[in-house]
């Protein structure tokens, strides 16, 4: 067990966990923030995507011991970000979700894309979103929502 100081969505948090605990489970079980989802545990599906120091990161494979003091933003906090808000609104406008379980990760990934590239092409979208699984296959609407968000971002 070790103590870690975290910054999550701008707030300071302290947790006592085994150093090997993935960030995903620290968020979900220590901080009770269940918006970030467990889909595979081996970083192949993207449901666990958060932002660590601005980089879209698959929290299921990052042990808390490797985090150091990098700030974390989760789906619960991304709405405070202007790009995040536009992406969430676009998702709702385009009626993207079905079961919705993968969508936290999809949205966090899309925000990372649009922050780096506010005018992504179809290829850009496919490359950046290419590692996020959706078993309901909402992909067509994910594309549309990203394009809509892109239009809204100046």
């Amino acid at each position, binding site marked *: 067990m070790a103590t870690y100081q975290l910054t999550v969505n701008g707030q300071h948090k302290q947790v006592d966990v085994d150093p090997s605990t993935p960030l995903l489970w620290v968020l979900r079980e220590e901080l009770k923030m269940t918006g970030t989802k467990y*889909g595979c545990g081996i970083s192949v*599906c993207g449901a666990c995507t958060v932002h660590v120091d601005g980089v879209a990161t698959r929290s299921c494979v990052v042990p808390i011991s490797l985090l150091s003091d990098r700030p974390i933003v989760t789906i619960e906090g991304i709405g405070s970000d202007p790009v995040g808000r536009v992406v969430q609104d676009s998702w709702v406008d385009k009626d993207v979700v*079905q*079961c919705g*379980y*993968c969508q936290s990760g999809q949205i966090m990934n899309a925000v990372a894309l649009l922050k780096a590239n506010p005018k992504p092409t179809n290829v850009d979208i496919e490359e950046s979103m290419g590692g996020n*699984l959706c078993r*309901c*296959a909402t992909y067509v609407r994910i594309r549309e929502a990203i394009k809509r968000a892109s239009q809204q971002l100046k």
Partner: protein
Amino acid sequence: MPAARKIENDLHLNRRSFLQVSAAAAGGLVLSLYLDLPTTAQEARPTPAAKVYPPDAFVHIRPDGKIVIQVNRLEAGQGAQTSLPMLLADEMDADWSQVVAELAPAADVYKDPVIGIQMLGGSTSIPNSFQQYRELGARTRAMLIAAAADRWRVDPEQCRTEQSVIYGPGNKSVRYAQLADDAAHKPIPESVRLKNPSELKLIGKPVRRLDSRAKCDGSQIFSLDLDLPGMKIALIARPPVFGGRVRSFEDKEARSVPGVHNVFEIPLVKGSAVAVIADKFWTAKQARDRLKIDWDLSGIEHADSTELFSRYREMARTPGAVAVNLGDERAMDRISASNQIVADYEFPYLAHAPMEPLNLTVRFDGERAEAWVPSQLVTQEQMAIAEVLGLKPAQVTFNIVYAGGAFGRRGPLDSHLVREAAAIAKRVPGLPVKLVLTREDDMASGYYRPMIVHRVAIGIGEDGMPEAWRHVVVGQSFLKGSGNAFEPFLVKNGVDNLVIEGINDSPYTVPNFHVSAHHPNVNVPTLAHRSVGYGHNSFVRETLIDELAARAKIDPIAYRLKLLKPDAKKFRSSLTLLEQKSNWRTHLPSNHAAGIACSEYHGTCVACAVDVSIENKRPRIHRVTAAVDCGLAVNPLTIENQVQGGIGFGLTQLMAKGAITLKDGRVEQRNFDRYTPPYIGDMPVEIDVHIVPSTEAPTGLGEAPVPIISPGVANAMAKLTGKRYRTLPIATI
């Protein structure tokens, strides 16, 4: 977080007292029909439910104006938590912006009105509850008006409703919330008038989902997210071969992980396993990794895909139990070999692999139990928990929680998962225990879409149409011999309809048509998987029809229209609409090709045209145009979503890694790295959906679109490569 779910309503009943309400209090309505929960499995025969459903079990108008509508089945992505409330809210003239949907707990009143058990499956949400929810809304409105008419001493005819407000003569008006108490005491009218199509405000319109925002901001609680005071996490170390047993185990290292509470053996439906109980998931996982278990794997079949396919191929060469015998069995023998197509098809096991791995929570205190389950077979699972814990079903409070996908996996007929959870809860009395399956557990847990082999012989007539068709299907049946309540309805003459649907009910005219099936016993549990038998049977049928059309040099849509049985109305309408909407087929680039396919599921027909080219040795799908006939379109937005999503789901069959295989009894794929469904790059860039206008009774969309994409793409690829694809998945072109 939801604790014991109460049905709060303006009669101030909780669920228990609701169930005790006598016929007299409900004004002549016999509620006792809903009171008797079966106490044994024998009693759980599907029974038709009574016609008049009490509105107060389905809709609660809160003092703040919010209208809470109970949804009588799991929401697993199919959209019922929006489309069912739409039906009720429209007839009720409710202010849609105030509507909140809740997933109803287990209770008789929430049983499917046609099937008689509480369930999600078979694309029945809309077709079976369409009338029910509309009438509920109309009854609620009638009771509200009766209360207003009373209060104002006017004729109910003088009242009208709009957006949660009742207007009376003069300038009288009252909000529903202000009247709800009085309305609840009004008699429930037996007959009600439903709106004319011109009066509908929501039904038929593209209405966005109610749960969208919560699923986009992280606030939606799924089953895995449930957190209850004192909750423990349970992981199970399962035998590597189905049915294996624990001979012995060593748990000293596992128990030494801080936060581990207990380690013990539990029975499985077949075999046994070891459960680890801990405070947190990661703790439980670390502990489980340190278990040393000696498995007894003797005396059980160690299934092997290679061996099974070989066995199945042999079986397919002999006729099985006969399902269809139309015309002359010998007609094929009179057709020369050069006018025959003989084809063998092979399909692997498929995993449901919903994004949220299987999990549920149970708490048992010795006298009562409470469960939180994303369940597709509610009535059965409530009974199963009761059975394991030695309770009556009424002593098991059974809450439904949102599921991250289901596709059939959350309704195993043997209720194995809830049985495991109950067995664990029994050993952790007084505390809620969440049984979690890791992705590896989930994917290797079995209950797959069975592997299937077909052997088909088609004799072609002079007109290029099939004159004789002999079809043998080999595949496991999870119903045959199970004793399950569904068995007598679906297994006839030794043939399981779920294995042959799509062939035995083919919409095409073939004068000499023979279908038979073998159902081998294999030590791999199987289950219904989204679109069930149509998933493989439609592939076989639609690729063979396409081959026939190509041989006859007739356009594939025209060929199908010509061959359709006269009563295949929805096939005709969807193919006709498809033809109108897919003119792009005639001017594709030279390295593209178009493929056609159509399929049906429980009354809904979907036809598609796909535009395919080959890139990097894989099919690249540029566009899909789909036409669907589902009767009345309740929510065109849901329909579009389900067609697009169903197509994406069905695409798994074509993916290079879209197969579950076994070697020496062990499942070889344990995560998405080896069983790889489509990502965004595998999907068609565009899927345009067109709905046949209809006023007929609506049919469901959850499954009908799934089978069409694979044969559509295979048919397009046949034009590009000259090859016919008969073995799925397509690993190399």
